């Protein structure tokens, strides 16, 4: 997943958590980057018509940005589910965050052929818990 898609996903989740525009501070915390980096990237996304930015309030996804954020969150959900249910990784959230930049959408689509994901994905993603609300960790012999 590229950096722009990771930002769009973060804006989407921050909007849900804050029930309004995604503030620079929240995005900086979520992405573990500086507020200056957030402002720079949000500016680029705004130029591409993917977010609207209002001074002192924050960023809001446009319709096009929302569609891309949905796809990015689905990809992330596939990675989390794959780690939790196929590789049986206990710390799947942390590992998904570490791996998402290396896993391409097409790779996630192939992994999606062996996991169970609900039709409403990504609406069932719990932004506060940072995982799908229906995700249950498989227990058994872990592949690590």
């Amino acid at each position, binding site marked *: 997943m590229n950096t722009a898609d990771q930002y769009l996903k*973060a804006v989407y989740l921050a909007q849900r958590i804050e029930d309004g525009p995604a503030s620079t501070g929240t995005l900086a915390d979520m992405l*573990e980057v500086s507020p200056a980096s957030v402002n720079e990237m949000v500016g680029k996304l705004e130029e591409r018509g993917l977010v609207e930015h209002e001074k002192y309030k924050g960023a809001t996804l446009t319709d096009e940005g929302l569609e891309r954020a949905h796809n990015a969150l689905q990809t992330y959900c596939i990675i989390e589910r794959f780690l939790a249910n196929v590789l049986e990784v206990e710390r799947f959230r942390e590992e998904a*965050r570490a791996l998402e930049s290396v896993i391409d959408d*097409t790779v996630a*689509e*192939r*992994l999606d*052929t062996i996991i169970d994901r609900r039709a409403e994905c990504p609406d069932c993603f719990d932004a506060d818990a940072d995982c799908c609300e229906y995700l249950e960790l498989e227990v058994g012999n872990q592949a*690590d």
Partner: protein
Amino acid sequence: MSLGQRVSSDHQLTRLLQIGVVLEEVVESRAAHHLESLPAAEREAIDEEVRELLAEAADESADHRERLEALIDELDAETVSYEDINQLVDARYGAPEDTDGVLYDQLCNEETAYKFYDDLIEAIEASDGEFAVDRDRVLETLRAIREEEKEGVEDVTDVMERRA
């Protein structure tokens, strides 16, 4: 969240190699399922060239898997067995309607594997960290597999073009 592609720890490398093994297992299993799942009439209609392509793809995936497993073994980790992945593929498998669908799925398999190794190589190259397994050997193995995936894409494309 981690921005930017980089593989910097044994743990992360191991996890990505494990994902590579599962991808190969998915390819191997889907190729086998395609041959078994087509209706008898379609199965007979699959010419020798397509049958050979699928059989070679399954063999090649098994070989890639073994090469990745050797590295994972050195990193002191385990992999998910082929039988487990085969069961998961089986549970959610939807057979393509015809031979063209089979070939298209096979093309996706090869392209996806190529993309995965390409990204993984780039992410390892972007990091200067050392691993418990020799970094050059990891890269050498992954580059060789990536090359074979590239040839796989070309092979499927050739067959598709001949049939068009």
